[in-house]
């Protein structure tokens, strides 16, 4: 093919645009220009600081105010007070990402400039922003008194009434209430002019929340509820009239959550707010000042928002001695979450308590001391060391007070990584295991999309058997009560805290042809190749192991149980050739679901034997223990089941299987009272129906029984239906529980709920 074109075409359409583009780029790349355009993004913070301080020194008084507004307060509300680099809680550890928002100035310098601004600028939104920032800065230095004073002074700069003054007053009243000065908080609250807030739903909600908390603290729970209900109604009406969804409007969620918690409190006869206080210190006793402490209500735990308003009304910062306190806390269940700076968290970790729930009830004063522990330093194998031996010696720095350690192994693959427990209950700060033991470990497999077996990640299938795979490891230390003390994983942001890199390679074996086919992303062909290997040599444990892994992954990815029989058979053969507790547990779990108790008992016993622990030790996870208890119950070993259920409740702070425990107890004792006592003792957390679900259900059932014409008949019916559940006749129970037109709707609801326990 040939093309013809004229000189003028080249000039017009190629050279001229190129010239234009390159000259623009050149101009943009010039340091002065880019600095002017991107706000000195390429400068280091130290350079920015020097320049800013120089500019300020040169400027006249009015110019200084302008510079502070632009460079210190920030423009366009990009600054959110009360935000932290890292949040740590029981089911979240998240970081704010990069350090884009870092200010080049030292906190003390910022404080001086903000004070100057507040004293000299004209009142407006920037002044209010500056006040909030100043309060946050003082708090973060552990100087709460100065923060209170600054807030007072800033408020005086605004006229009454004004929206900004009201906003600062809400902040002040909230602080006073958290500090336990309910009377002063009330005074501040009463001076707020609510009409100034009318346009701002967010502020309005904050105002209502404050009002409700003040009322509740004043033992006026019903009024508090009414105030919230009215506010929610108004908010709904406003958003419907503007055609938007009320749930998406600012302030709706915190209002409804507070409404629910007061409703629950009233139902549970709780009319007094509680107090939680404590300290945040490092293990050497040094207080951590200026750290954020959040008290998160049970229903809010899964919202990962770091927005201070979404996290509820209970947030504060530790003072210079690391102390913090929350007063006027609604009854209910809470967990702590910390907000730390990179400097505070670097090289340290906070281990959430084994039972993270804080129960605020009957106005009790609770003490919750929190200790940061240094990260465990790993000794070997580290820094991408290559191991060719048949034995691997892991060793790490011992932790004071540790009774045992768990070691986890991980594999890195192109787009991710997985981790899994390699060994539990290690009594020394070192562990020697054979390569074969690592090979037996299967990891959670990764895949691209369900229904596409080819998308399985080969590296996740081979796990530790891939000599080219980069492996990682970490340890967790526990005390004798099973409480986590410290761990090796965490934030390592300086050269000192980085320590050894937790990576190594295990090059103890070579890939088989079938492995290569798998790594070539042809799982179906690999499956056939492994099958051939097993046929050629029935003792080939590697091929057998890979065959079971691929079959199991295929079933999950293709979402069918085709080939399950073959898989189970192969698993049994593998277990006989190369016994591993993990595989025994897989088989026990399979027979649990099949309700084949003979087989279940066999593999459960094998699992315990291979895990070298007796059944009452920490050898079983809370979930395994719970299913073991259910298995005992199904085999009519009710007394043994009770024993295991009790241990499971102690192990699992969420009490996931409490429903089955209640059924077992009720079937044995035949009294609703003892069942109710259990429900109260072990509230089920993190369930959709709420923490008092079983308590309320059993209370309702007591009432239903009382109203029933013939109590003996009611008891008989209950015993029969419980029998069906206990003995595993779900096929009979299910249709009965979903029948309509029964005169025992609560009993039916109870049975339905039991069927959902898993």
């Amino acid at each position: 093919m040939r093309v013809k074109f004229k000189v003028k075409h080249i000039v017009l359409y190629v050279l001229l645009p190129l010239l234009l583009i390159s000259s623009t780029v050149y101009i943009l790349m010039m340091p002065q220009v880019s600095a002017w355009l991107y706000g000195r993004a390429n400068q280091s913070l130290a350079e920015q600081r020097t320049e800013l301080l120089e500019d300020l020194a040169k400027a006249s008084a009015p110019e200084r105010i302008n510079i502070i507004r632009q460079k210190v307060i920030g423009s366009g509300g990009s600054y959110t007070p009360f935000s932290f680099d890292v949040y740590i809680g029981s089911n979240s550890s998240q970081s704010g990402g990069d350090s884009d928002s870092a200010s080049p100035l030292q906190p003390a310098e910022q404080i001086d400039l903000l004070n100057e601004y507040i004293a000299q600028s004209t009142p407006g939104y920037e002044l209010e922003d500056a006040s909030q920032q100043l309060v946050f800065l003082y708090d973060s230095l552990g100087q709460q008194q100065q923060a209170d004073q600054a807030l007072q002074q800033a408020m005086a700069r605004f006229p009454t009434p004004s929206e900004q003054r009201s906003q600062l007053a809400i902040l002040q009243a909230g602080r006073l209430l958290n500090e336990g000065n309910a009377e002063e908080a009330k005074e501040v609250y009463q001076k707020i002019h609510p009409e100034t807030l009318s346009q701002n739903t967010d502020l309005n909600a904050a105002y209502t929340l404050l009002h409700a908390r003040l009322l509740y603290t004043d033992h006026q729970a019903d009024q508090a509820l009414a105030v919230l209900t009215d506010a929610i109604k108004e908010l709904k009406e406003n958003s419907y009239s503007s055609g938007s969804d009320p749930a998406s409007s600012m302030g709706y969620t915190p209002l409804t959550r507070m409404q629910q918690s007061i409703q629950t409190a009233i139902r549970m006869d709780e009319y007094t707010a509680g107090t939680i206080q404590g300290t945040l210190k490092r293990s050497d006793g040094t207080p951590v000042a200026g750290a954020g402490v959040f008290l998160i209500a049970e229903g809010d735990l899964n919202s990962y928002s770091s927005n201070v308003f979404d996290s509820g009304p209970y947030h504060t910062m530790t003072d210079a001695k690391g102390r913090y306190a929350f007063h006027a806390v609604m009854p209910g269940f809470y967990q702590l979450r910390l907000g730390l700076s990179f400097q505070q968290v670097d090289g340290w970790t906070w281990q959430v308590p084994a039972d993270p729930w804080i129960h605020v009830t009957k106005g009790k004063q609770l003490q919750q001391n929190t200790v940061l522990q240094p990260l465990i330093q790993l000794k070997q194998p580290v820094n991408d060391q290559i191991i060719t031996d048949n034995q691997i010696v892991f060793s790490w720095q011992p932790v004071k007070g540790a009774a045992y350690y768990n070691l986890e192994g991980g594999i890195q693959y192109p787009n991710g990584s997985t981790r899994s427990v390699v060994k539990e209950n290690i009594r020394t700060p070192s562990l020697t295991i054979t390569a074969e033991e690592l090979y037996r470990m299967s990891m959670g497999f990764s895949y691209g999309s369900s229904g596409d077996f080819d998308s399985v990640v080969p590296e996740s299938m081979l796990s530790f058997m891939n000599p080219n795979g980069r492996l990682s490891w970490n340890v967790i230390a526990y005390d004798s009560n099973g409480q986590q003390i410290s761990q090796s994983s965490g934030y390592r942001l300086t050269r000192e805290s980085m320590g050894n890199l937790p990576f190594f390679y295990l090059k103890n074996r070579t890939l088989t042809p079938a492995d290569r086919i798998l790594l070539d992303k042809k799982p179906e062909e690999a499956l056939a190749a492994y099958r051939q290997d097993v046929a050629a040599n029935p003792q080939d444990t590697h091929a057998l192991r890979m065959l079971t892994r691929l079959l199991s992954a295929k079933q999950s990815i293709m979402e069918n149980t085709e080939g399950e029989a073959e898989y189970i058979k192969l698993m049994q053969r593998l277990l006989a050739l190369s016994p591993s507790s993990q595989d025994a547990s897989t088989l026990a779990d399979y027979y649990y679901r099949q309700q084949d108790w003979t087989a279940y008992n066999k593999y459960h016993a094998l699992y315990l034997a291979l895990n070298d622990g007796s059944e009452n030790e920490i050898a079983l996870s809370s979930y395994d223990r719970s299913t073991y208890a259910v298995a005992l119950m199904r085999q009519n070993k009710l007394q043994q089941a009770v024993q295991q259920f009790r241990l499971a409740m102690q192990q699992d702070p969420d009490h996931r299987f409490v429903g089955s425990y209640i059924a077992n107890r009720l079937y044995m004792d035949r009294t609703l009272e003892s069942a109710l006592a259990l429900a109260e003792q072990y509230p089920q957390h993190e369930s959709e129906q709420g923490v008092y679900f079983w308590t309320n259900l059993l209370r309702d059932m007591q009432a239903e029984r009382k109203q029933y014409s013939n109590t003996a008949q009611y008891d008989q019916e209950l015993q029969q239906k419980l029998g069906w559940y206990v003995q595993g006749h779900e096929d009979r129970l299910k249709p009965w529980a979903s029948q309509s037109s029964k005169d025992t709707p609560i009993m039916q609801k109870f049975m339905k709920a039991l069927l959902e326990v898993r």
Partner: protein
Amino acid sequence: MTSDHSPNEQQQIRKQLEQELQSIQFKGHDHVLHQTHPESLRSRIHALWNYEFDISLRPAGIAGALTATTFAAFLILFNDPSPSVQDPASSSSPSSQRQLIQIGGNTYWQDQYEQAVKQDES
């Protein structure tokens, strides 16, 4: 004067003339035209402006691909991924554009981590 050459003779002379002139060729068309019709600057520019290239795509494509590859290789080889403003002495103080990386259960500053891995390799 009447022609005393016969047509046959005429033809022969012509043939002879053609033979003699065979080695002489006139190549001055352009020169003559240029002298008789002098070209303006404008028209010359116009000619250049409208000058037509005729290029076979295949060699052009190969040449283009080669240039692009060289350019890409140049970019890869000479583009240092580590931040240029990073002062190694003060690397513990956060610069305004550092990225975190989560790997092996830990969280590191990406540049520091990459440096450490490089060190272990050497």
